[in-house]
């Protein structure tokens, strides 16, 4: 829709000019925030809400006088669930739009596609998505949850309740492979057995053979790390074949709201660790959902990435106001103090100076037979400790690398 986009752009330009003339006395221009999220393609169902969350935060910030008196201006591009688009638009926002900060990315493949470009132009990017962990890069700030927050809580809890035989069904790319490695390690540490592990190429929608493999392996529960709309067909097909095993996941429900999209009881006994979903029953979460729905009444679901994107906007505001500048080194100096915190939709969260990842309160969400959500337990304030303990310290050096349990940072 080039014409539509141009129209929006023209409107935005008009708006920006309006803001500029109005605030000429302040002689300050807007803080430009690049937003690269998938608004079409395979991931759109889970990610369109992130753009709305960022818009909501930007409007709130502007209504309250901007960031340090400067209004916020969003530069939004649709990355179309396509890694090449991420690279193209990341170059565009950093080079020609000259944004101060970028909010970008859903899939880990897309993040790894754009990260070298952020490094090349020394940009600053917020990745507001749960992921497989391990990115130690000073140009990145990660507000999504990581394996020590989602798996170190979930897997032992599931093994206690449903036995020590575990089967992993994961998407076949960096996210699924590395997450499966985490699951494998945690299962072994807790004296369990991996009775099966299967990697599914993205875009696969037929699971007949996988369902049979799972039944043959007889696990206590299945860890589903399936990504994208096509792979989500698994739940319906497994339910139709009456597999009837509990499931554990770090991505379902909290991202793709499968419990709303599929007919009950296909997601019965799915357990997910998430830092936010719209069913969370805290006053802060309820207030967030209420104002979100007031602004975007047609939003299908307010997921954890929406909350993380909203939190990230507010953290950025806080950092810029404390530093008195949008300069990246100054902002990182603020993070290094270790007290950049925000009390938002998912409770109090803080940025960890060593890894530039965020602490989270993790809710265990259980999908009931009627697809309502209950919360059997909550883990308060889990730090993103793994990178720091493994040897990543961004206050000292910046390797700009991604580490995993089997390839940790080099020991000094």
């Amino acid at each position, binding site marked *: 829709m080039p014409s539509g986009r141009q129209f929006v752009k023209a409107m935005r330009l008009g708006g920006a000019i309006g803001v500029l003339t109005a605030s000429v006395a302040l002689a300050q221009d807007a803080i430009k925030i690049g937003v690269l999220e998938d608004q079409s393609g395979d991931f759109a169902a889970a990610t369109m809400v992130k753009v709305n969350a960022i818009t909501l935060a930007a409007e709130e910030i502007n209504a309250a006088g901007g960031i340090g008196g400067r209004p916020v201006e969003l530069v939004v591009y649709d990355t179309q669930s396509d890694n090449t688009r991420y690279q193209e638009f990341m170059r565009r926002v950093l080079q020609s739009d000259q944004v101060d900060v970028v909010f970008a990315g859903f899939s880990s493949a897309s993040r790894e596609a754009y990260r070298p470009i952020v490094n090349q132009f020394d940009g600053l990017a917020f990745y507001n998505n749960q992921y497989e962990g391990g990115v130690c890069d000073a140009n990145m700030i990660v507000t999504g949850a990581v394996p020590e927050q989602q798996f170190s809580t979930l897997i032992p809890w599931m093994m206690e309740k449903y036995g020590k035989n575990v089967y992993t069904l994961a998407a076949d790319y960096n996210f699924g492979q590395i997450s499966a490695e985490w699951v494998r390690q945690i299962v072994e540490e807790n004296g369990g057995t991996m009775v099966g592990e299967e990697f599914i190429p993205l875009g696969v929608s037929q699971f007949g053979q996988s369902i049979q493999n799972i039944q043959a392996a007889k696990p206590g529960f299945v860890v589903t790390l399936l990504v994208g709309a096509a792979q989500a067909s698994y739940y319906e097909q497994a339910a139709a074949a009456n597999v009837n095993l509990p499931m554990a996941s770090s991505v379902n429900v909290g991202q793709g709201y499968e419990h709303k999209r*599929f007919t009950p009881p296909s997601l019965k006994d799915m357990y997910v660790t998430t830092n936010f979903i719209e069913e969370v029953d805290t006053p802060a979460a309820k207030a967030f959902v209420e104002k979100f729905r007031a602004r975007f009444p047609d939003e*299908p679901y307010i997921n954890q990435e929406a909350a993380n994107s909203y939190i990230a906007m507010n953290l950025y505001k806080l950092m810029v106001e404390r530093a008195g500048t949008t300069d990246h080194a100054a902002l990182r100096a603020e993070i290094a103090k270790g007290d950049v915190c925000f009390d938002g939709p998912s409770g109090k969260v803080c940025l960890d100076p060593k890894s530039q990842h965020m602490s989270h309160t993790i809710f265990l969400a259980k999908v009931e037979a009627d697809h309502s959500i209950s919360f059997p337990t909550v883990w308060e304030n889990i730090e993103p400790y793994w990178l720091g303990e493994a040897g990543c310290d961004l206050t000292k050096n910046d390797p700009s690398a991604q580490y995993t349990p089997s390839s940790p940072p080099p020991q000094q």
Partner: protein
Amino acid sequence: MLTLFSFLFQFGDAFAFLVIASMGLAIIFGMMGVINLAHGEFIMCGAYTTVSLAQLGLPLPLAILGGSLVAGLIGMVLERTIIRHLYHRPLDSIVATWGLSMIATQGVLIALGSTMQGVGTPLGSFTVGGFSYSTYRVVLMGIAVLLLVGLYLVFYHTRAGVIARATIQLPRMARATGVDTGKVYTLTFGLGAALAGLAGGLYAPTMTLVPTMGATFMVESFVTVVIGGGDIFLGAAPAAAILAVIRSGMTAWQGQLFGQIGLLITVIIVIRLLPGGLSGWILGGRK
């Protein structure tokens, strides 16, 4: 652990998917020669219509027929307005149908949002030898076979089928005998679109409903039709059987990735050795 039944079930499941997904394309691309990159969007149209009708309270079989009908009607309208100007211009038809596919995907995303709630798979499950299976999958296998038989009867044992084949093989001669070839093209294209819509309707209860869902059918459909060649019955049907054996065998042996690799390697080998596809090879002796 693998019983004969489970292997047969997986084979039948893969066969049904390949046949149902590719029949519409076999007519539009295999017979008529239009490289239809909007095939997946006809499938999506059938799926969305089916689910909408089912949610309005129509029984699922009727809803599926409705999905097929709507896709067929849209197909006929598109044939009249766009496709008919592109016969014998394969490269242009690629661009045009690709454009249609993008318009349909993005249009549905804007109009109906990023997802739609499904209807759930009917008919429950049954157990054989310690494994449980979805009954609906067996129904799909039956429908795949019925579809092949039905199309065979239509094209080879009805007057309309003979006229359709005559029109596509020798349009001038058909016109000389008084056939309204324009109408035949429209109806044949409509039938292809309706079969794609039927595929969408049949698989809608088992899948995620998103605007891009058609894409997951594309590789399998094209692979089946390319390996099959121009003739549905001597081409696409045996191609689907062979590919189903390769796919289910490779998937059972090494997982989904190898199932896909097997599928694609088979295409490379077949089009290298048999450029006319299976049907070209089978019919080669007769020409």
